[in-house]
C-alpha cells in the first residue's frame, strides 16, 4: 500500500490536461487568405520550435510556415494539425495577417474566428497584407531573426516615426461593428529594395476599414495624422520628424505631441470640429547656420513649423473627408457621446455630413531644445 502511494506521484504526469513544453510548437504569426471564387480559406501559420534535439547547449529555434485550406477557418485550422508533428498552441501568437482579398470580402468571418477562439490573444496585432498573407510569412528577415520577432520590433519602432499604425484584434473588434466610423490598421508589404537584396517585410501606411470591410490603403503621412488625432496613449510617447521651411533654409525637427483637444459643436445647426494640438520640438538638423541665439529667429521657426503641421493635417483630413469618405478618426463617436440629441437627428445623414463638415486645425509648436551644437552670434556674423 505504502509502495503504491509512493508511486502515485508519478501518475501525475499522466494527467490529460498536462501540456509539456517539449511537445509544443508555438504559432507566432498567422496569415489568413480567402479566395472569393472558390470560397475557400487558406490559413498559414508561422511556427516556432527548437530544431536540434542535441543536448549540448540550448537548441536553436527555427521558424517555418505551414498552410492548409478549407471551407471554413476553423476547419482549416484543424486541417493544419495533420501537417505539424507537435501540439500547436496559439497563445503566443502575435500577429494576424489578413490578405487583401480576405479583408475585403470575408472580414466578418475572420474576426469572428479570431474572437471566438479561446487561445487567440486579443492583444495580438491585426495587419492587412498587400496581396496574399501567406507570401508575407514566407519572407525571411534580413537580420536572420525569427519573422515574428523581427515584425514585433518593427511594430515597436512605430512610435519613432509614426507612419505605421497597429491595432490589436480587440480594438478592431470594438470598432468593426460601428456603421458610422471607420478605422485604420496596419499594412504590411514587401519593401522595394535594390534588386540583389533579399525581400524584407515593411510596415508603413495603413489599411482603411469602413463598415466592417477593408476599403483602401492610405499613405504613411496620412497615418501620422491618424496617430496625432487618436487616443493619448498612442501619441504620448510618439516622436516624429518633419522638415520645415523652404529649400534654402530648411530645418528638420523632432516633434512630440504634448496636448490635444478636439472640440465638437454645432454651428448654424451644422456639426463642426475644432482641433487644437500643441507640440514641443527639438532641433534635429539645419541646412545652414541660423542665429539661434536670437529669440525672434526661434519664434519665426516655431511659427513656420506650426503652419507646416497645420498644412499637413489639413491635407490629410481633406483626403479622409473627400476622397476616402470614411470617418477614420471617429468624429462620429465624439458627436454621439457629447451631443446625443443632435446626433440622433444627424446620424441618418452622417454620410453626407462628414465630407462637408468643417474641421479647423490649430497647431502650436514650441521649440524647447536646440540640440548639442549652439551657434554663437560671432560665428554666424562671420560667415
Amino acid at each position, binding site marked *: 500500500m505504502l509502495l503504491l502511494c509512493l508511486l502515485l*506521484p*508519478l501518475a*501525475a*504526469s499522466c*494527467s490529460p*490536461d*498536462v*501540456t*509539456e*513544453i*517539449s511537445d*509544443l510548437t*508555438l504559432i*507566432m504569426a498567422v496569415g489568413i487568405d480567402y479566395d472569393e471564387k472558390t470560397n475557400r480559406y487558406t490559413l498559414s501559420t508561422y511556427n*516556432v*520550435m*527548437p530544431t*536540434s*534535439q*542535441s*543536448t*549540448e547547449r*540550448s*537548441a*536553436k*529555434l527555427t521558424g517555418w510556415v505551414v498552410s492548409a485550406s478549407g471551407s471554413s477557418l476553423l476547419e482549416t485550422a484543424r486541417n493544419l494539425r495533420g501537417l505539424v508533428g507537435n501540439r500547436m*498552441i496559439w*497563445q*503566443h501568437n*502575435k500577429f494576424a495577417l489578413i490578405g487583401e482579398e480576405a479583408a475585403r470580402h470575408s472580414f466578418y468571418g475572420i474576426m469572428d474566428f479570431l474572437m471566438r477562439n479561446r*487561445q487567440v*490573444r486579443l492583444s495580438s496585432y491585426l495587419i492587412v497584407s498587400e496581396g496574399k498573407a501567406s507570401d508575407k510569412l514566407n519572407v525571411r528577415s534580413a537580420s536572420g531573426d525569427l519573422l515574428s520577432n523581427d515584425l514585433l520590433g518593427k511594430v515597436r519602432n512605430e512610435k519613432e516615426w509614426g507612419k505605421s499604425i497597429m491595432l490589436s484584434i480587440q480594438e478592431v473588434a470594438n470598432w468593426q461593428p460601428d456603421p458610422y466610423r471607420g478605422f485604420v490598421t496596419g499594412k504590411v508589404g514587401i519593401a522595394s529594395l535594390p534588386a540583389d537584396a533579399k525581400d524584407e517585410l515593411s510596415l508603413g501606411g495603413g489599411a482603411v476599414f469602413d463598415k466592417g470591410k477593408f476599403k483602401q490603403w492610405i499613405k504613411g503621412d496620412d497615418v501620422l495624422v491618424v496617430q496625432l488625432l487618436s487616443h493619448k496613449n498612442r501619441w504620448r510617447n510618439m516622436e516624429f520628424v518633419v522638415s520645415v521651411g523652404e529649400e534654402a533654409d530648411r530645418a528638420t525637427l523632432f516633434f512630440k505631441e504634448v496636448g490635444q483637444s478636439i472640440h465638437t459643436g454645432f454651428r448654424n445647426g451644422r456639426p463642426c470640429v475644432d482641433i487644437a494640438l500643441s507640440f514641443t520640438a527639438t532641433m534635429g538638423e539645419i541646412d545652414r547656420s541660423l542665429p539661434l541665439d536670437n529669440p525672434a529667429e526661434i519664434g519665426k521657426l516655431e511659427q513656420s513649423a506650426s503652419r507646416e503641421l497645420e498644412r499637413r493635417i489639413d491635407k490629410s483630413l481633406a483626403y479622409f473627408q473627400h476622397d476616402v469618405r470614411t470617418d477614420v478618426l471617429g468624429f462620429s463617436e465624439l458627436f454621439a457621446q457629447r451631443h446625443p440629441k443632435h446626433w440622433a437627428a444627424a446620424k441618418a445623414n452622417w454620410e453626407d455630413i462628414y465630407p462637408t463638415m468643417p474641421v479647423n486645425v490649430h497647431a502650436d509648436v514650441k521649440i524647447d531644445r536646440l540640440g548639442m551644437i549652439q551657434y554663437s552670434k560671432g560665428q554666424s556674423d562671420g560667415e
Partner: protein
Amino acid sequence: MEDKQIPVQTSAASNVLFIRQLFDQNEYLVVRDISGTDNERAILVYINVLIDEKALNEFIIRKISEDQSRLDQASGGTILDSLHTVGSVASIPLIGDAAAFIADAGILLFVDNHSSAYGIKLPGYETRAIEEPKIEVNVRGPRESFIEDLHTNLSLIFRKLKTPDLKTISYLVGTESQTRVTLLYLEKKIDPDVLNELKSRMDKIRLDILIANTQIEEWIQDNTWSPFPQVLNTERPDRVVTALNRGKAAIISDGTPIALIVPTTFFEMMHPSEDLYERFYFANFLRVLRLITLFISLFGPALYIAVTTFHLEMIPTPLMMAFLSSKAGVPFPTFVEAILMEVSFEILREASLRLPRAVGQSVSIVGALVIGEAAVQSGIVSRPMVIVVATTGIASFTIPAFSTALSFRMLRFPFMLLAAYIGVLGISLGFLALLFHLCSLRSCGVPFLNPVSGKGWRATLQQFILPPAKYRIRNKGGS
C-alpha cells in the same frame, strides 16, 4: 520505591548501608569515614566521577581537620559546623532524596544521632566552554551561545537581566535521568494565563530520560501532528532575554544547549535576533527579503511545474522561447524532472550535513557539479529546472528558524504534486489548506499566526516592520 521514603536513621552506618544498597554495583560510590572518634561517627558519601574530589580534599577535608585540631574535639557536631562554613548545606531527611542528591554531584554527610543527612553540592565534571553560536550566527550581536550545563546557561541569562522580577521554576524531568529543567519568566511582563497553562503542561511531562529538550517541546506543544514547530528554539542567550522581555517564558534544560521559548508566533520565527542589531532599514529589507524567500522555498518548483504544464499562456513569449529551446530533447515530464532534482538536492544536503566537515564540502561541490552541469549536459534535466531548484534550495536556507525551514522544505513536495495534477488551482487550494492549518495552530493558547496584538496598531505594525530603537514600543518588540 519503598526505600526512597525511608527516613534517615540516627545511625550513620545504617544510612550508609542503605545508600550502598541503592548504589549496588556502582564502584564509583565513595564512602569516607572522617570522624576522629567512634562514639559519634561522621561519614561522607559521594560519587567520585561527579564531584570535584580535589577541592573536597584541599578545602573541605582540610578545613574540617583544622577545626578539629583547633577545637580538639572530634564530634560529628563540630564536623557539621565546619561544613556550614564552607558552603550552603542542605538538610535531607529522606534516604531517597539523599541518593538523588549524590547522583546530582553532591557530597553527603551522615552524622550519628542526626535524623537527616547533610549535603553540599560540589560538581566537578567537565563542561564545554561558552562558544560562538553555530546555528544562529550574526554579525553585530553578542557572540555567546548556550552550552550543555544548566548553571552556566542560567548565569548567561541572569547577568543580562538584573532584576528581581526574573522568576524561575525548577522541574526534575525524567524518572531515570532526573534532569533539571528551569522555566524562566519576567513576572511583570508575562500573561498569567499563559504562565498557568505552561505550568500545567510542564507538570504533565512523563519521560524516562530527558536527553534533548525537543522531548519537552513535543510534550508542551499544542498540535502534535502539525508540520510546524510551535515552540521557538534558540541557542542565543540574548534572544532568550529579548523574548523574556516580550512577555514570553523560556525553558532551559540541563544537557541541551538550546532554550525553548513559548508562546511564539510564526512571524517571530521569521525574524532572527540579528534584526535588532542592524540598522533598521537593513533589518526591514531583510524582513521583506525573507518573506520573498519563504514564498520561493515553498512554491518555487510547484509554480514552475504549474506554469509550464498548465498555464503556458502565462509565460511571456520571449521566456517561453527560452524554455522551449532548453526543454528540447529532455526525456522526462517536467514534474518528474523536478522531483528528480529536488530529491537529489535533498540527498546532497543530507550528505554534506552527515559527512565529516572536511569531506562534506567536497561532496557539495562535486554534487553541485554532477547534478547541475552533467545532468544538463546529458540532457536529463533542463536548465531552467536547475535554476529553479537551486534558487529554491538557497532560498530555504534564509529562513532563520531551522525547524521552520525544515517544515517548508517538506511541504514543497505536496505542493509540487498538487501543481502537477491541477496546476495553479492545486497550489491555491493547497495554500488555502495550509493557511487554515496555520490559523488553527496555537502556541500555548496564543494564535500562531498572531500578528495583531491588543496594544494598538503600532505594536501590530511592529510585527512586520522594525522601527528604529528609539521609537519601538518598550515591552513589545523592544530590545
